[in-house]
């Protein structure tokens, strides 16, 4: 899936403040929200973001934890930050 979304390129959230802008060697510009980055704006490891995204699904919509984790993984693997790297 091409990078065509203006939200966070790691978790897909559209309404968070963008915390970090990172250019990679392919000259793509990635935008990350504060949930997906550390205090210096560096992208957190995939497992940590998977955990955070799962929790986000559960906390906001009361989804079943197993279903939430499956959905989180499906979605993250489509995001530009993770599509080529996992």
């Amino acid at each position, binding site marked *: 899936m091409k990078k065509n*979304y203006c939200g966070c390129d790691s978790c897909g959230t559209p309404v968070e403040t963008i915390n970090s802008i990172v250019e990679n060697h392919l000259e793509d510009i990635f935008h990350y929200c504060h949930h997906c980055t550390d205090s210096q704006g560096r992208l957190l490891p995939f497992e940590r973001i998977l955990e955070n995204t799962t929790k986000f699904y559960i906390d906001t919509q009361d989804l079943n934890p197993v279903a939430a984790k499956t959905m989180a993984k499906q979605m993250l693997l489509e995001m530009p930050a993770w599509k080529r790297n996992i």
Partner: protein
Amino acid sequence: MKTTRQTQKTLTRKKLVTAAMKLFAKQGIIATNTAAIAKSAGVSHGTLFLHFPCRDDIIFAVLSRFGRSLCTAFKLHTSKNIKSLKCVLKAHLRVIEEFEDFYTHLVMEISLLAPKLKSFFFMLHASVSYRMFVNAQQDMQEGKIRPISRPLLFNTWIALIHYYLVHKDIFSPKKSVIKEKSPELLTHFMNLISLETRNN
């Protein structure tokens, strides 16, 4: 600076997404094939696949456009100074109204679409829920609305809106159900969660 070729590529991509959105809104997401999208955008079928290697990619692009509008609406209509839940709900309704026909098909067909699309749809919901609760907390602290959990606040709201959308043919035939019903639905929802109303 973009070259002419890059500009053309971006324009073609935009045309394809716009055409897809119109067709999804008119005839449904599942019922729309890529050949029809390409024809409507005035490009060859092969060109569509250069931009969107599979059908799900173009659906994702339309969903992303909806997500961008949500993002813009929340930025425009909710500021650091205005932390009222009603502002978020109004902004949410405004975006749903803008995408009403597409969004209604999306709600009705989401279970039949690819899991990754469903996951993204629920991420958009998660973001609305998050924003609703951030603003609701202020109202809760000020005693304007009763304490209510984040998921139930959102799920109650979205259930109400989706019910009217899914049955729009009987609530507002051939018209925008959101445009017609949003003042009433907004007032009803606020009264439902309002402490002031409950105490009266």
